[in-house]
């Protein structure tokens, strides 16, 4: 075990995977000499050389399209998109090509590319360094979508992503890159996809969160505990595949659900989770499902603190579900 920040855990995960498998390589803007703008790839160029740590020209579609070709040929590329907000030039490659290669080729051309990208607000990044648009990718069959909230999960899920046979969108909560640290297992210790993490056991209300909203949900649970409300906090961490059984079981136990994400509400991931709970756990529900999310606006700069869900908003929503049924 080693005490690491979340971004350090990403870095160790990359190095671990590259040491174990010579086919693994890293490519993206500023990932080599500069070690990445968040330093997630720091030191990799020195250890693994230019052939496996590639500084690319400034073109997201070029990065992802090239990574696809590498994967078709049998390499294991891990592409970095500097901010999720800049991924859209590559959206065509991700949605039209990466997600569909296995299917349209009748299984002849699997395409196991990992795309790492920092996402989310809380760093005063304005419209174009803050967005949380995981739902776009969750909507596309063929992609897996994973979002860690702890250093151990960052490394463990990344190791799983790199050995996975399918394309994986690996979204990193940059707001807690350095503010969260924790014990991380040494070596090749993987965290499986499709399993939610029970952050805190509770009996009155289930709070579902992922990424940078997990600490927010935990803080809200502390507030609620002081008021005598026992909140269960579940870190989904793998949106596709989703741990449906864990979500349903938790609501069957507590009878109440609060879903937290910083993405806009309309057609956000919370809508899918709420629909799932309505389909599978309706008769366990004692109160309407609540969502605490970003607003249906572009991401703001000056008023970011109002846009992002905080512990007070989450606690308020949980309290209302307890009060109403």
């Amino acid at each position, binding site marked *: 075990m080693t005490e690491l920040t979340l971004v350090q855990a990403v870095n160790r995960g990359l190095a671990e995977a590259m040491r174990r498998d010579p086919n693994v390589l890293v490519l993206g803007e500023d990932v080599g000499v500069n070690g990445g703008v968040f330093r997630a790839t720091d030191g990799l160029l020195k250890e693994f050389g230019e052939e496996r740590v590639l500084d690319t020209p400034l073109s997201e579609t070029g990065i992802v399209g090239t*990574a696809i070709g590498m994967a078709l040929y049998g390499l294991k590329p891990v592409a970095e998109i500097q901010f999720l907000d800049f991924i859209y030039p590559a959206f065509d490659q991700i949605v039209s090509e990466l997600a569909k290669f296995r299917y349209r080729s009748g299984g002849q051309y699997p395409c196991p590319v990992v795309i790492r990208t920092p996402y989310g607000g809380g760093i005063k990044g304005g419209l174009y360094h803050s967005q949380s648009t995981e739902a776009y990718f969750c909507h596309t069959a063929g992609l897996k979508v994973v979002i860690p909230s702890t250093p151990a999960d960052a490394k463990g899920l990344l190791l799983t992503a790199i050995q996975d046979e399918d394309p994986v969108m690996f979204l990193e909560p940059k707001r807690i890159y350095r503010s969260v640290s924790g014990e991380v297992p040494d070596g090749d210790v993987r965290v499986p996809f499709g399993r939610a993490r029970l952050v805190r056991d509770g009996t009155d209300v289930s709070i579902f969160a992922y990424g940078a909203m997990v600490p927010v949900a935990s803080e809200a649970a502390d507030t609620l505990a002081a008021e005598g409300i026992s909140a269960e906090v579940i870190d989904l961490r793998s949106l596709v595949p989703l741990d449906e059984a864990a979500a349903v079981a938790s609501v069957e136990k507590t009878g109440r659900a609060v879903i937290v994400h910083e993405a806009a509400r309309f057609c956000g991931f919370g809508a899918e989770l709420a629909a799932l709970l309505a389909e599978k756990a309706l008769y366990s529900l004692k109160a309407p499902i609540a969502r605490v999310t970003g607003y249906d606006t572009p991401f703001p700069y000056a008023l970011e603190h109002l846009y992002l869900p905080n512990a007070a908003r989450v606690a308020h929503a949980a309290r209302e579900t307890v009060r109403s049924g």
Partner: protein
Amino acid sequence: MNEATGVVPLPYTRAQIGERLGPTGTETMARALRWMILGRALDARMQGLQRQGRVGFYGAATGQEAVSVAAGLGSTPDDWILPGLREQLVALVRGHPLGRYVHHLFADDLDPARGRNMPCHPTASEVHYVSMSSVIGTQVTHAVGVAYGMKVRRSPGVAFAFFGDGATSANDVHAGLNFAGVWRLPVVFCCTNNQWAISMPVSKQTAAPELAGKAAAYGIPGHRVDGTDFVAVLDALGRARAEAAAGRGPTFLELVAYRMTPHSSSDDPGRYQPADWSARARAHDPVARLGAWLEAEGIVSAADRDAMHRAADEEVRAAVSAAEATPPPAPASLTEDVYASSRSALRE
């Protein structure tokens, strides 16, 4: 234009063929003619079947056969093909059986791509013919990634990226040329300029006088080649391939051809092509040009050409019969191959 043959003659003496294609050059040309005639027969038959509602869609390659057959004959087994819509002959020449390709056109249970993609979008991984989408130009960056893999694995192969004149306006063609130039990768960029992107002539696509000139912006060589002259195409592809394989980086080839059929079975060129287009295109028919040269040189007789046409028609007829006797893909296959393992796309 030769009045007797109706086409612009191939401008070579027999000696010049030897200089350009080596001592077996004329034999290669005769082999090429057979493949081009097969492609032509396939196009004719499939367009007819599409109109009868027996095939869902078809995009003919009529007029562009010299490019595909040259690429098929001029590539090696280690090479990879990243195709566009009109390069299926490359897969066939490289060894993908015609019957299997026709199963794909019928999207039946024996389609190697399991009926997932539209007709003319085959996958033939056994000859490194990669699956394509219908999005224009996206395969060009894939070729760059494949070539990167070849470089780091020290493979003797090169990647061939095929795209059309319209694609030169698209993002991924620019990105791919740029990346390959910076990294000096073994890619041959084959831009078949058939002069039309559906209804758009090249003059409405770009102000550049020649597409080959665009290569200069990426620091790589660019050449404009007569894409209906099999000899010129094979020669140019061979030189570009040799440069790439020797580690001297990519080449951009503009292969000028004439689209002799509609863009696809969903298109009506009467709305936009000038009245004299068909006549100009026919004068540059690559199959007729190659056939006329071989006949004039006494290498292939008129009777030989007739026999080639009959054999091709019969081969296509047999493949169509086999496909029409094959059932559609099993319903359960709808949800397979979305992911590697069995997470069901239809949960219930």
